[in-house]
């Protein structure tokens, strides 16, 4: 589904962001991507949705090579993905329905089916009654749910979530995480970058830990034990206290 092989990413101004990262995410799998700010989480995700290309190594997503994909192939690759961000990225002048429908319209889905699919996606994220609301009329958690509805309305094979709970309070964060688990349970693989160590600690899901551009821990490779995840969480907590809490301006 998603495979990184010896991936190096170097930016002209800021230098090396990823050092020889290798891992694989299977179909229908759920994994956390953790690490302090600037550790390379966002760079790693950008490679997955072909926003960036690897300097060395290979990234394969749903049968496409990110290194060689150009033009239309990048668009086709992205249609197999859903991407969710910390800042939601909704269009403020459109309703929730229109924001979700947008993802179908631009990929040429027939107009006759759009309404139905949008309604189902909004129902899936628990916002069936808020389709006509605009983003400013919704809470942060609801806005993120709209963003998730937009990400899954194309029935993606893989959902990439970059700090999806970063702007939410605990309750909303738990709700969004639960929603991602449900989406995962329906067969979509999920890779979720997060600073929310409570979520990581409470689940027994796979954890990929980044530090200074290196993948320093993969709980699947290490035996997927909960204590390991706890240790990662404890270490991250320590690092977090020393670094800025927001990853927003970190990776280029």
């Amino acid at each position, binding site marked *: 589904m998603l495979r990184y092989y010896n991936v190096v990413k170097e930016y002209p101004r800021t230098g090396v962001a990823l050092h020889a990262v290798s891992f694989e995410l299977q179909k229908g799998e759920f994994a956390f991507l953790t690490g302090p700010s600037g550790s390379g989480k966002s760079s790693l995700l950008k490679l997955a949705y072909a926003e960036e290309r690897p300097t060395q190594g290979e990234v394969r997503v749903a049968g496409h090579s990110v290194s060689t994909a150009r*033009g239309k192939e990048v668009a086709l*690759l992205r249609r197999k993905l859903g*991407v969710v*961000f910390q*800042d939601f*990225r909704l269009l403020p002048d459109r309703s929730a329905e229109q924001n979700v429908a947008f993802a179908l319209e*631009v990929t040429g889905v027939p107009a006759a089916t759009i309404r139905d699919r949008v309604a189902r996606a909004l129902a899936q994220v628990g916002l069936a009654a808020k389709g006509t609301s605009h983003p400013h009329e919704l809470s942060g958690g609801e806005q993120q749910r709209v963003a998730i509805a937009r990400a899954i309305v194309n029935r993606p094979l893989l959902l990439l979530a970059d700090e999806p709970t970063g702007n939410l309070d605990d309750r909303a964060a738990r709700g969004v995480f639960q929603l991602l688990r449900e989406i995962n349970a329906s067969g979509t693989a999920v890779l979720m970058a997060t600073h929310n160590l409570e979520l990581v600690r409470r689940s027994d899901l796979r954890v990929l830990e980044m530090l200074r551009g290196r993948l320093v821990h993969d709980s699947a490779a290490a035996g997927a034990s909960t204590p390991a995840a706890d240790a990662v969480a404890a270490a991250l907590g320590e690092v977090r206290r020393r670094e800025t809490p927001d990853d927003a301006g970190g990776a280029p």
Partner: protein
Amino acid sequence: MSRALREALVGWRRAPLLGALGIATIAFSLFSVGLFGLVATNIRRALVEVEERVEIRAFVRDSADDALVMADASSLQRLPEVATVTYVSPREALDRARSELGEFRDVFDAAVLPASLEIRLREGRRDVASVEKVAAAVREAPSIEEVRYGEEWVRKLARIRSVAAVTGLALGLAFALAAAIIVSATIRMAVLARAKEIQIMRLVGATDGFVRLPFLVDGTLKGLAGGLLALVLTWAAHGLVSRYVVRTTFFPVSTAALGVLAGAVLGLLASALSVGRQLRRVGADRRRWQ
């Protein structure tokens, strides 16, 4: 294409002020080009009218018989620069001199003026070199005694024409460049206002062509609307100047249509450049999003 047109119109409805400002900006920048064009056209027309008076007058020898004069006239007529050769008899010359001199006509009562050939040149062949070439040919004609063509005046006219052409070209280019820059900046603003939309479109898998097309339609329509508005403004300015200041000539229909078309092409090119740049720049960079 219908989707692109619909998207462009929806974009205008969502941000009507931006759309109207865009069209008005394009219209006024093209209007300035139109005004300049109007001035240039009328100066050129005035110069052509003056040039039409360029003529070579060849005085016929008294001894030359009619057959010889006619033979010379027809050989001069065959020169590529020559439009017409008119024979003016001594009687006609006297009548003309009398009518031109009005109250001094008595001076000519007993005078005898020589017969002459009046040679007019074709449009585009009234430059100094052509006039001198034809004058030299006329001098060679056996029936001709003397040639006059206002050498100094022809040279001055040529200088004025050169200055007008160079100034017109430079100013025209400057106006056109300024209009192109303004139109381009206006269209770019419209594209930037929808940068988030472009970003999301790409993120959810829209092809670049799909993203680009509505912007190209939008830019072309704005250019076309701005061009039409500029044409109306230029027409109104021409009407006012003609009525209150000096009678002017408007562009031919083909030139006016070309101006409007240039607006549309300018809008299209500016859109293509702006959206192309935006497509290269936008990605999911969150600093630009916020």
